[in-house]
């Protein structure tokens, strides 16, 4: 490797180093399985996804380069007899990674559209405390359902979504509110037009069920299953040992999953 290669590898961005390619692929695969296994949207792995997207872009470029070089010299098969084989291996590998990313994103969008209000309310709770006062004052003047869609313009922390997802879910909910309003909610009395009504102590915002059971494998030495109560009180339930596969509640192992001590199956 000479100095140009080193400089080039710096220029190519975060996804450049080949050593981390295998690791990132494993991380992406594990994250995809996890995202498919639970009903809530998992925290968006910004850094990992940036690296993966970088890599996919570079891989597409290099495949195009290879394909172009084979088109230039159609008769020169002796030069590189394996070119077609190499191209098809590279393309298969690319298609598999793209499938992973696509499936992951579509799964997240499906969850977001299903629980859009829940995530909008959650996001609007992320905003910095300084700008919180203004949103309360309008609550009396509700005339259309779209007024109950939280405003995200002051939100800077999009956890657990990515910024694009947050924008998506906000526009989605606005369209939905406009549609509801146009098709039937206009006919309702004013006080019944909210989409986040919680009259009678029952919130009409549906959220994902964190008590759902999931299949997990314990990867660290020992991982206890946490009992989560209504007030967040925590107790320790059964203990999983390394290599064990269990059916447990998602909320009971969520924190262990975040630390990478268990994997979802």
């Amino acid at each position: 490797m000479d100095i140009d290669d080193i400089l080039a590898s710096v220029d190519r961005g975060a996804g450049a180093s080949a050593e981390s390619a295998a690791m990132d692929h494993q991380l992406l695969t594990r994250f995809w399985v996890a995202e498919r296994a639970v009903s809530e949207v998992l925290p968006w792995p910004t850094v990992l996804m940036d690296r993966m997207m970088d890599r996919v872009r570079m891989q597409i470029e290099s495949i195009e380069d290879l394909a172009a070089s084979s088109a230039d010299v159609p008769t020169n098969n002796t030069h590189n007899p394996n070119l077609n084989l190499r191209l098809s291996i590279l393309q298969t590998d690319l298609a598999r990674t793209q499938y992973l990313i696509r499936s992951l994103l579509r799964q997240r969008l499906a969850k977001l559209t299903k629980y859009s209000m829940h995530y909008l309310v959650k996001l609007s709770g992320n905003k910095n405390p300084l700008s919180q006062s203004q949103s309360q004052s309008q609550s009396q003047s509700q005339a259309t359902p779209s007024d109950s869609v939280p405003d995200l313009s002051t939100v800077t922390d999009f956890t657990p979504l990515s910024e694009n997802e947050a924008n998506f879910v906000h526009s989605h909910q606005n369209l939905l509110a406009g549609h509801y309003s146009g098709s039937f909610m206009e006919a309702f009395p004013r006080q019944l037009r909210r989409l986040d009504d919680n009259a009678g102590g029952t919130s009409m915002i549906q959220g994902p069920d964190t008590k759902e059971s999931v299949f997990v494998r314990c990867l660290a030495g020992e991982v206890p299953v946490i009992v989560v109560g209504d007030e967040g009180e925590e107790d320790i339930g059964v203990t999983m040992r390394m290599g064990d596969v269990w059916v447990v509640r998602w909320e009971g192992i969520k924190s262990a999953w975040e630390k990478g001590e268990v994997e979802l199956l």
Partner: protein
Amino acid sequence: MAFPLPRGITPSEIAFLAEMEMVTVVPRQRLEGLELLGGPVEPLVPPRPSTPREYYPPAWLHPDPLSLILEVESQHQDYKNAFSPPLPLPGQPSIRDNGLAPKARPQYTPDGDRYFPSPPFLPQNTAQMTISSRDPPALPFHWVEIGNMLLEAASDDLVEADQVRRLLKDLREIRLSKMRAGVDALDAAAVGGGGVALTGVGAMEVGEERGFLSGVVDNLRKIGASKEQARREQMAEQRANGGYNGTQDEEEEEDYMEF
């Protein structure tokens, strides 16, 4: 609808995962190394005919270990309601030296987090250079899929492929019936902090039974919700009185059954 598939990866997605398992390739022709998105691939160089090397199929994919596992699954008292133990993870003591504390060996991600490798990214299905008999035979996580793939693509390289095929089928049936018979134990997973151990289960077996198992557990949980609420209130009361006894409760939680 953005995504029509149900929660949890489906059997075809499990097969896709199983395709990430590593296998040994003895090349017939030369191929330069490739920088794949799944990691770099070393250059393929065909071995010289003058120095032939012996390769053996993966340790478990052989009639002897498979019939041993089958015997354990069907005859052994300890495994009447449980699956045979899985291949150990790196750092996990094998069944032979039971009692040793597991030492998980984490790798580190580029972001500095701990990462514990697991199937399909462990070399559990690569060819063996020698036949080692130290470790007791065990099925890898993706045994159904890898078994079928190797039988289909490389049956010439396996020992008594037909026998292997028959044993895999028998194993599958006996384990499937265990999975079904274990429904009684599912009540434990419906309680907060409880769970049902399925250690040794295969990926495809999880995929096949996922809908049924999680349906049963989630419905049991809904039925038992008021009971759980009452118990939690009782516990809170005990705690408020200062006489909370942690061990007593733990014992109650520990009465899970293994499949």
